[in-house]
């Protein structure tokens, strides 16, 4: 067990150092939700001829932040596999006496930590602007809720990573997922204004619940009844793991196709 833990820490260290080198990406991920939410707020003010309710800006700010985290996580999973295949890093990792789950866990923890970090910075700015310090405790509890809500999303990232093994182009793989998540998950607007079929898609994906739980927690009205769907979302994590292992075994290990 100690050996596995050390392996996890070693890979985690490398992944976090990799991430810290990408300061531009981190800065952009923080700046982007603020920029886009202020842009739409400005458009709203222009159209209405007066400043819209600031709560609506906060609604979109939280949504865009979760969207940024979702895009970052799915895109980084796809790039992890792609770059790993091109640089042959995956070949070394698979050849080492290490459980693939440790590799996947280390990569996922890194992108999860990055997501939480983005949320802490952007969300804190939003909470302070809209509610002052009165909702700060709720906000920190919401951050914990978000951290837990990201766990089922890791399952989807595993599916993205698995599809990259065949599809090769990471952006082309993660782009449709980002489009579907953005549109159907109630991040920038309530899903009630969507056509019925898109509402259903939104409701079966974990992103919708992450945004809803976080907003409810910040506003202080989250209770256990709201959380009843949550355990079912872990199906994504289990399913994602098996799908990833299937693809990894059949298309990388079995064929010995570690590159290109």
């Amino acid at each position, binding site marked *: 067990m100690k050996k596995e833990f050390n392996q996890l820490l070693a890979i985690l260290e490398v992944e976090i150092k990799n991430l810290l080198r990408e300061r531009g990406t981190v800065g952009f991920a923080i700046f982007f939700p603020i*920029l886009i939410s202020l842009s739409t707020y400005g458009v*709203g003010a222009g159209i209405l001829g007066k400043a819209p309710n600031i709560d609506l800006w906060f609604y979109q700010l939280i949504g865009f932040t979760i969207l940024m985290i979702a895009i970052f996580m799915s895109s980084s999973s796809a790039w992890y596999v792609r770059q790993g295949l091109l640089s042959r890093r995956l070949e070394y990792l698979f050849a080492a006496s290490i459980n693939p789950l440790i590799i996947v866990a280390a990569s996922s923890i890194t992108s999860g930590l990055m997501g939480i970090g983005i949320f802490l910075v952007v969300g804190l700015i939003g909470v302070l602007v809209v509610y002052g310090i009165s909702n700060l405790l709720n906000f920190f509890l919401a951050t914990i809720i978000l951290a837990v809500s990201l766990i089922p999303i890791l399952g989807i990232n595993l599916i993205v990573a698995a599809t990259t093994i065949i599809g090769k182009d990471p952006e082309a793989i993660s782009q449709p997922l980002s*489009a579907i998540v953005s*549109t159907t998950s109630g991040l920038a607007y309530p899903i009630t204004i969507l056509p019925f079929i898109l509402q259903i898609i939104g409701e079966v994906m974990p992103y919708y619940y992450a945004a809803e739980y976080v907003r409810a927690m910040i506003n202080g009205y989250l209770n256990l009844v709201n959380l009843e769907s949550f355990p079912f979302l872990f199906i994504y994590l289990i399913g994602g793991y098996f799908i990833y292992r299937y693809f990894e075994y059949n298309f990388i290990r079995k064929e010995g196709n570690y590159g290109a």
Partner: protein
Amino acid sequence: MVLNLSKKVFSKITTEIERGIKLYFRNGIWLLSDIISTPFWVIFLFLTIVFYAQYLLKDVNALTSLMWGIFIFILMNSFIWAGNSIVQSVTNGIVDGVILTNTNITIHLLGRSIMSVFDSFISGIIALLTASYIFGSSLLIHNLPLFFASLIIALIFYSLFASVYAALIVSLRSPWIVSNVLNFILPFLSGAIPPQLFPKSVANILLFSPFYYISGQIVSAATGIYLINPTIMLIISIIITVVMVFISNFISKKLIQSMSKEGKASLI
């Protein structure tokens, strides 16, 4: 001698166009990705923009303008990323070849611009159909000749703009950040967000933006809603495009000179 030079330039242009077409159709996964993503992005953009004024979802004129706004957004976005592709050319060592063969950066980017044209039209048509089906926007084009004329002007302008943009970002470490930010600034400067939705004093600010005369003209020709006289708008758009030819040529030459002098393509 002039004939030989023209032949050489023509040969380079056709090679780049051929490269662009081959690259576009080689990456079938991108085509599939666009076909799946575009309808979702269109719905997302529509609903995000009207989030604060949901009554607009019942206004066919506003929805139609918004639909064409998204069409030009796709067009501009595609060319911004064409400009951004210079980074790949640099990291793959292609720019070294471009310098050695004394090729203009604008000509080199033509291949990527051709991909942008395909991309814009396929995604653009999907966007128009999605907006019409989901939101009931009208697909009727008010002034067809002006629409096609402004579309051709926009394609020429943005191909040149892509090369100017490429020259400006080539030395940056994270140019994609600038590209993403530009993607959110351009819709405001180009009339992609329908100006008639705003008070006249705010809408008139657009008249100071060159991008409005290029992109906004497409929306105006399609919807029949003009901020200024269409003939004046057309003349100004042609003048801006001609000016862009000179700017693009000048910046491209400067870039090649600087790269040749320093012996390195960029900081990367």
